[in-house]
């Protein structure tokens, strides 16, 4: 029943959008009526999505999608998150978020009516494309042809609170760029005033903040759920989310630049189209299954080809409009050897090079397989030795960019910065000389600390310190950069200075980690609702007669016959102690302990970046 409601409201929502799309050329709507239609279709899409959630919550196995991906004895949260834990449901979530963005956009004030209408028409067009894709190739409301009273279960690796909220937030970022895309195209068509740039800025900041949160949640999940001790693996799926993120970052910065320069409009439109194209392309790569192998694409070609078609329509349409209707030329860029504009332009170029390099590295194995039928890998080492060196000059520029002036190439208070940089480099040189030296560690620490230091000097020397909201809005760019600096320190320390200790232990053994005694208490097995767990219990002596309990082990999910590893992590502000329980051999358990210094800085940095993303939304 709920499936029927869901399907009908989905089809009806697409129908309304069709009607609106055609109506632009047939007759003119009034604004009120038009917005009402848009909101109604959004609500219908939402209803469709909620009826799918309902089918999952009540474990309605007459729905084929629920039967394939759910199981009645799962905790409620994983029944709900199971809705988007599969291809069909996640595409419906995609569409649903697209509608929500249209819904909120229809309430935007102080923009021209026709401009708003045109933007929403383009949104309606996207809704139709993806709606038809769902209805024809990935319908989550299909009826199960056999009567069953139990489902096949959700992939256990997805049964985790982090991954339950990861897809909606990530998609909010991806799909948020659809609004930016629509605004940019509408801006090209109407070419009125620059008002659209401020609207675009707001929405691109919102999308970027969501995308940041989504990626961070994903990598945090990888950190504690995969149990490999790392949090970024240059996995194709990760790369795909990183591309629109970097392009979006370039977009946000370009939008800031408009305040000082008008000539950058063309570039902004280009980036807006690029961001959404990368989002759709990412959806294609992940959803077509082409990433794991070219051959798995053939198994489910209709879906892949359909999304590829959508990708070509969206990208082709976007860039065609861009070429035909490019914004009128205004005065040339005011690029001095080093002023704010040239710094931003250089950073934009570097970001785009990084994006394109990641893109090439991600699809290169596919190209080679199609051309030569040979499988090769492009993994972490490639990206580390190409993307990171490209970004380093960008990071250097970033540290001073906010204090550069728009007009001249004079840096205020340059002596202070030089002095600070000298002191800092001496400190870092001493640090790396007396502790173990590592090139990347040296560069990373210097960059990270320098960015933080320069931003703090800039805040203190350029503004009067006041504690009110306006002040926080003014120093926001510096705060964002401090966040980046903190994240760079965290990234550097946790990857370069990671320490690994291996043990073979019996229950009751004591061993030494970082000068602290750890007791391997016992192995415990328990039966949970939908899995069996095996846990090694450790007592970590934190000093002062206090100890912390750490559990590391594995879960066995009988429904899908899968084993997941569950790392035990002791979080401290300056390091994470990461326990992995291995296999038992000759009555001894293999235990791997990783000491990851300053991992918490990565998450702190990301939170600061998201915070300043939100603050920037409210700042005009």
């Amino acid at each position, binding site marked *: 029943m709920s499936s029927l409601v869901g399907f009908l409201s989905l089809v009806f929502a697409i129908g309304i959008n069709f009607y609106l799309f055609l109506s632009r050329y047939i007759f003119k709507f009034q604004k009120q009526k038009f917005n009402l239609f848009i909101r109604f279709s959004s609500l219908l899409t939402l209803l469709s999505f909620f009826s799918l959630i309902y089918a999952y919550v009540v474990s309605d196995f007459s729905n084929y999608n629920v039967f394939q991906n759910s199981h009645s004895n799962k905790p409620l949260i994983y029944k709900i998150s199971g809705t988007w834990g599969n291809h069909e449901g996640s595409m419906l979530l995609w569409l649903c978020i697209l509608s929500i963005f249209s819904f909120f956009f229809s309430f935007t004030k102080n923009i021209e009516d026709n401009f708003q209408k045109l933007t929403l028409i383009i949104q309606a067009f996207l809704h139709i494309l993806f709606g038809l894709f769902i209805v024809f190739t990935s319908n989550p409301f299909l009826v199960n042809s056999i009567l069953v009273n139990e489902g096949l279960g959700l992939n256990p690796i997805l049964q985790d609170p982090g991954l339950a909220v990861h897809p909606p937030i990530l998609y909010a970022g991806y799909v948020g760029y659809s609004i930016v895309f629509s605004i940019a195209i509408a801006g090209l068509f109407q070419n009125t005033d620059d008002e659209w740039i401020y609207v675009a800025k707001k929405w691109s900041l919102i999308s970027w903040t969501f995308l940041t949160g989504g990626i961070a949640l994903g990598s945090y999940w990888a950190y504690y759920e995969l149990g*490999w*001790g*790392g949090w970024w*693996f240059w*996995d*194709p799926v990760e790369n795909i989310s990183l591309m629109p993120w970097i392009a979006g970052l370039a977009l946000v910065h370009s939008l800031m630049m408009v305040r000082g320069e008008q000539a950058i409009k063309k570039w902004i439109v280009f980036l807006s189209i690029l961001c959404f194209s990368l989002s759709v392309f990412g959806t294609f790569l992940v959803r077509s299954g082409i990433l794991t192998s070219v051959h798995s694409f053939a198994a489910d070609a209709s879906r892949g080809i359909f999304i590829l078609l959508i990708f070509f329509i969206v990208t082709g349409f976007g860039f065609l409009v861009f070429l035909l209707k490019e914004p009128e030329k205004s005065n*040339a*860029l*005011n*690029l*001095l*050897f*080093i002023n704010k504009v*040239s710094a931003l*332009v*250089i950073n934009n*170029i*570097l970001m785009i*090079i990084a994006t*394109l*390099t990641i893109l*090439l*590295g991600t699809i*290169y194995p596919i190209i080679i397989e199609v051309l*030569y039928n*040979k*499988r*090769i*890998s*492009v*993994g*972490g*080492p*490639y990206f580390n*030795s*190409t993307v990171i060196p*490209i970004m380093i000059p960008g990071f*250097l520029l970033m540290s*001073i960019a906010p204090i550069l002036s728009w*007009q*001249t*190439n004079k*840096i205020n208070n*340059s*002596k202070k*910065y*030089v002095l600070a*940089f*000298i002191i800092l*480099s001496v400190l870092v*040189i001493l640090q*790396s000389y007396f502790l173990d*030296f*590592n*090139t990347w560690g*040296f*560069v990373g620490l*210097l960059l990270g600390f320098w960015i933080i230091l320069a931003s703090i000097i800039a805040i203190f020397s350029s503004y009067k310190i006041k504690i009110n909201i306006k002040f926080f809005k003014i120093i926001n760019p510096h705060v964002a950069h401090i966040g980046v600096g903190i994240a760079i320190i965290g990234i550097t320390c946790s990857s370069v200075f990671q320490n690994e200790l291996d043990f073979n232990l019996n229950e009751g053994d004591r061993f030494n980690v970082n000068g602290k005694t750890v007791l391997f208490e016992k192995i415990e097995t328990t039966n949970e609702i939908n899995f069996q767990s095996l846990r090694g219990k450790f007592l970590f002596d934190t000093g002062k007669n206090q100890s912390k309990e750490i559990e590391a082990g594995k879960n066995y999910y009988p429904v899908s016959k899968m084993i997941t590893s569950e790392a035990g992590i002791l979080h401290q502000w300056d390091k994470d102690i990461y326990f992995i329980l*291995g296999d038992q051999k000759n009555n001894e358990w293999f235990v*791997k302990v990783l000491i990851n210094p300053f991992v918490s800085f990565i998450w702190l940095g990301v939170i600061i970046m998201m915070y300043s993303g939100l603050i920037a939304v409210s700042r005009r």
Partner: protein
Amino acid sequence: MKLNPFFKFLNIAILSFIFFSLKIFAIENIDERVKNLTLELRCMTCQNQSIYDSDAEFSNDIKKIVKRKLQEGKSERDIKKFLVERYGEYILFRPLMNYSNIFLWSFPFILLIIGLFFVLIKTKTKKA
């Protein structure tokens, strides 16, 4: 145009950086070498995991082979060549720098040069 003191200092920083980089040529011990090499190899039975990070049987075998070959005095290049012959190029996370991959490796730097030219052409040298 007179160089800004900031950039003057940047030069010094880069020079000292190069000086310190020389230290990486120092001899590492055998476990360190095994780690560095196996980090760049794909575990063929896992999902996008390096041999170093993986505890799968396949990875443990390869780790042993790599260690033995290093002890025999084989170079990293020889070991990689041996593994590629046995398992194909798929095992290498760092694609080979050969003619067929020339585009992959040169692409970022071509873009960088184009970008640099763009900035140089557009930059005004006189003060506004």
